[in-house]
């Protein structure tokens, strides 16, 4: 039950979806399963929420290190959940969009979640700059190529890059830095991305086959052995 049933479910669902592509009467099966997948994913979100509650309540009750911040997490979680599930201050009532701007959910989304999310990501600009300053050294040919390509792309997306080569005649327009950046993105970058994508495609196909046939069982955890 612990091992054979999950292996059978994986095999059955995986095989059915592959066969459905080649069988017109059941070709919409993929779409139906994608809805099934979405519904189960919602329960996974609930599981995540339940786990979050459990972890932080345990942390608070045992007065673990930085337990006071767990209260912040729980307050944020409960208020956002209450605002969203009950559509608090949502003028359109139950039929209105949950993300309506005037609703409490929309307000928290716009004033808390969006600023936090975009600032967290923008922090990476500083860390990338600092890491690249330390790591980028034109030590050999390969490192120099990487450095030059990155520099042209960065320069090509600034007004300074446009200004630097604006004097060039139209017969040399490919040498203008913005155009050079576009060319790098559309030609050598595309070639490299494509070589990687083909490798990824082969990897995913072989891994999918291993999973469907039950060769790969790591997702079952310890009982998969």
């Amino acid at each position, binding site marked *: 039950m612990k091992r054979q049933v999950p292996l059978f479910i994986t095999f059955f669902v995986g095989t059915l979806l592959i066969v459905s592509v080649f069988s017109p009467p059941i070709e919409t099966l993929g779409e139906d399963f994608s809805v099934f997948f979405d519904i189960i994913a919602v329960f996974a979100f609930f599981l995540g929420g339940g786990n979050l509650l459990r972890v932080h309540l345990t942390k608070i009750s045992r007065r673990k290190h930085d337990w006071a*911040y767990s209260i912040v997490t729980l307050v*944020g979680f409960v208020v956002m959940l209450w605002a969203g599930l009950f559509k608090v201050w949502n003028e359109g009532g139950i*039929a209105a969009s949950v993300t309506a701007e005037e609703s409490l959910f929309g307000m928290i989304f716009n004033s808390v979640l969006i600023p936090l999310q975009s600032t967290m*990501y923008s922090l990476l600009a500083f860390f990338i700059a600092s890491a690249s300053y330390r790591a980028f050294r034109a030590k050999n040919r390969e490192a120099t190529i990487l450095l030059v390509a990155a520099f042209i792309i960065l320069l090509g997306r600034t007004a300074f890059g446009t200004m630097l080569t604006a004097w060039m005649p139209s017969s040399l327009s490919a040498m203008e830095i913005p155009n050079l950046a576009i060319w790098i993105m559309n030609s050598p970058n595309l070639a490299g991305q494509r070589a990687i994508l083909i490798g990824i495609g082969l990897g995913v196909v072989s891994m999918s086959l291993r999973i469907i046939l039950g060769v790969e069982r790591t997702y079952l955890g310890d009982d998969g052995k």
Partner: protein
Amino acid sequence: MKRSSIVILSAVVVLFLVSWILKGASFSGDDNPYLRGFLTTAAAFLTLAVFSFLYQDNPFYKFAEHLFVGVSAAYWMVLGFWQTLVRNLIPRLSSDLAAWFETPSKDISLWYIIPVIFGLLLLMRLSKSAGWISRWPLALIIGYTAGINFVGYMRSDFVNQIAATFVPLLVNWQGTGAFFSDFSLAIDGQFVMMLSNWVIFVGVMCGLIYFFFSKEHTGLFGSASRVGIWILMITFGASFGYTVMGRISLLVGRLTFLFRDWLELIG
């Protein structure tokens, strides 16, 4: 709590209140000026709290980080509930319940009870003794992903990518004479277009040769592999530059918010 921490915290609270009052006054034409003032101030202080991490890890950053975790977990739960369960599941299971939620009804299909059962089984993960049952829905998710990706990736990442690599190596070819007489480095010129196609074709081949480890990389094969490395280096460099620019544009967005929407120092 140290005395210096209390002083800093008090200063931040006072600054918050001052900003709230001033922003509220600046939105005096709105329906809820002080609510808008509070929201703008909260967004600005949370932005600054995250930026404070650039100095070092501190209580303000930890506060913002923990708030982010709680709010985003609830956000995805709420979105999943309204957009998937209410819109896609309930109308397929019960027309009465769909009417109560004021959502358009769909054809009733009891097949959709299956994902509900599997979803409930997934919640068994929270139980120590019955946690193993959660592997069944996990197996369904893994099986679905494997089945869909097998065909999807075969098409999009393998067959389509190979097909797109076989591009004409002679573009608008009208003979050697015409080629040299009209030679230019214009971005839409014949030479640059041909060069692009050559780079794509040769680049993909050499990139694939680099990833082929069943033969030793020596001689002509080794040279092709070396070209493959160069192409990959350009790709990594371009991806790096692109990522940095994306992050910088986010940073510019946050700074614009702080200096224009909050402090009103720029127009």
